[in-house]
């Protein structure tokens, strides 16, 4: 098997504030192969966005990527590159799109200028050629009258249109990897459908890999090949997309799936995960999910679970993998907090 396109291993990104250390990303490993879509799923505070920013080395002090971490991309160790070398990769070989396109676009430049600028920074294309490529790219993202649109300013465009512009800007140099951080969260559902379709079409045309950061399991089911579930700064489950939905192994993944209201059926009452994500400055000992887990037993408090293999290309960070009988036992939550998140 050839090397994966991107290989993140033991990534730790900590934020230091005097004595206090926030371990936002704490030992995360996963691979992305060429052309595939990997989804990183998690809630606020899971560390998924910090993971994405770490890959592009966009972490600013007091944040720091700790020394044992490794991010290999196309055979090169990104964490060893100089800032200058990193800039030739950012926006060129690895591109990123964000949740809020309005704040990611410069309000005083036309969208065409902004896309052309990316081309001119990374290649020696002439002003005219760069502009032509910007127009071409806008056309590719399904914007009608791309030549006219290229001369417009971000505020003249709708939210969906801006997201298309941002995608055009990210993909104009045909990167090998696109990191999409909640790309459709701010959009309406009918526009979201358009953008997801667009991303999939462009992925096929350009042959790039996509690392999708999202909280929405519905979006994951639409587009992902493989899924990484994050909780408490760690990967808690890793599987192919179908396997994850058919046989989720980690209690957190299970909880997320049952806490979602469903369009196709109506439950009398939603299953909830009690409590809240603990702060990254004070992860619980042992399993980080144990306070909120209905299966938790004494082992969970003392022994930090490793990622146990639980199937073909499927791993789960839960001791249930080696003590499966506990799943069938009738269980009561370790801490009873009826519906309260206090």
């Amino acid at each position: 098997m050839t090397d994966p396109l991107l290989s993140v291993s033991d990534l730790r990104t900590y934020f230091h504030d005097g004595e206090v250390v926030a371990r936002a990303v704490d030992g995360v490993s996963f691979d992305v192969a060429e052309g595939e879509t990997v989804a990183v799923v998690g809630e606020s505070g899971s560390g998924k966005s910090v993971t994405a920013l770490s890959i592009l080395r966009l972490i600013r002090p007091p944040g720091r990527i700790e020394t044992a971490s490794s991010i290999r991309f196309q055979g090169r160790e990104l964490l060893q590159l100089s800032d200058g070398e990193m800039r030739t990769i950012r926006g060129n070989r690895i591109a990123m799109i964000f949740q809020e396109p309005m704040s990611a676009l410069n309000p005083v430049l036309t969208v065409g200028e902004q896309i052309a600028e990316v081309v001119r920074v990374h290649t020696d294309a002439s002003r005219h050629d760069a502009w032509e490529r910007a127009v071409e790219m806008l056309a590719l993202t399904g914007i009608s009258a791309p030549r006219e649109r290229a001369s417009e300013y971000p505020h003249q465009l709708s939210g969906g249109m801006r997201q298309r512009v941002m995608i055009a800007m990210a993909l104009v140099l045909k990167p090998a990897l696109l990191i999409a951080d909640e790309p459709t969260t701010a959009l309406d559902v009918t526009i979201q459908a358009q953008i997801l379709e667009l991303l999939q079409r462009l992925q096929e045309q350009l042959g790039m890999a996509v690392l999708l950061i999202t909280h929405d399991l519905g979006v994951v089911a639409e587009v992902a090949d493989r899924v990484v579930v994050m909780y408490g700064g760690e990967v808690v489950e890793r599987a192919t997309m179908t396997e994850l939905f058919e046989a989720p192994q980690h209690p957190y993944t299970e909880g997320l799936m049952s806490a979602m209201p469903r369009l196709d059926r109506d439950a009398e009452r939603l299953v909830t995960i009690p409590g809240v994500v603990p702060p990254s400055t004070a992860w619980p000992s042992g399993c980080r999910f144990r306070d909120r887990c209905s299966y938790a037993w004494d082992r969970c408090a003392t022994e930090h679970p490793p990622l146990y293999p639980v199937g073909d290309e499927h791993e789960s960070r839960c001791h249930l993998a080696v003590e499966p009988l506990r799943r069938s036992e009738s269980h009561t939550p370790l801490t009873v907090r009826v519906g309260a998140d206090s």
Partner: protein
Amino acid sequence: MVRHAGIASGVIAVIVVVALLAPWVAPYDPIAQPDIIGLKNLAPSFSHPFGTDSFSRDVLSRCIYGARISLSVAALATAIAITLGTLYGAIAGYVGGAVDAVLMRIVDAALSIPRVLLLIAILALWNGLPLWLLIVVLGATGWFGLSRMVRAQVLSMRELDFVAAARALGASGPRILFRHILPNVLPTIIVAATLGVGHVIILEAGLSYLGLGVQPPSASWGSIIQDGADQIGAAWWISLFPGLLIVTTAIACNALGDALRAAFDPRENAVTMAELDS
């Protein structure tokens, strides 16, 4: 930023305390003229650190007593300006519509007249203005800019959900304004007040230097400078020391105001963990 604020508030505190304790701290009586010939225009020395003036008065003692006048004129005038500006701006912003339009056009008109010219005109017409009236005039001409800032903030705050929630609860207009909106505008007001004090100190000094401000025998820093103005070559210390005090106090007020503005501005604060991953 924090260190600047610390130094600035330290400087201000020292000056205020010295002014308050003037009768105990000042080495001499500020208006005593012990020997108008023998002790006149003495250069700074151990017994007269700031020297003496042409009436043999101790400049240090005059500066200490002058601080009382300068600071209290600045503080009271600023208090008047802040009160007027806040109320005016809050009413314009909260009531809105035609009332707002009229009130703000008045402010626009007032702002188009340079304040110094306005003050000189008023004070020149009024010979020998009593101190309290000087304070009122300085306060009454100093609130236009603040009223615009307060109005803008009230206007944007009025649209926030917690204000809507208070209205939905049945809260009355004044209640919403005083309980919900103004406490949130307070940071702006405090910053404006700090910067305003520095500004009024300079303004009052300027007017007193022109002989339009504080009238003798009272002395502010500005009038002490004026005392020494016609012999600046021979007895430079008479004007230099009060001048340095004005500059120091004004810089300290501005530094403190800037530091407070930064502290109150959420955009200047560090990104929290929650924001990073939301």
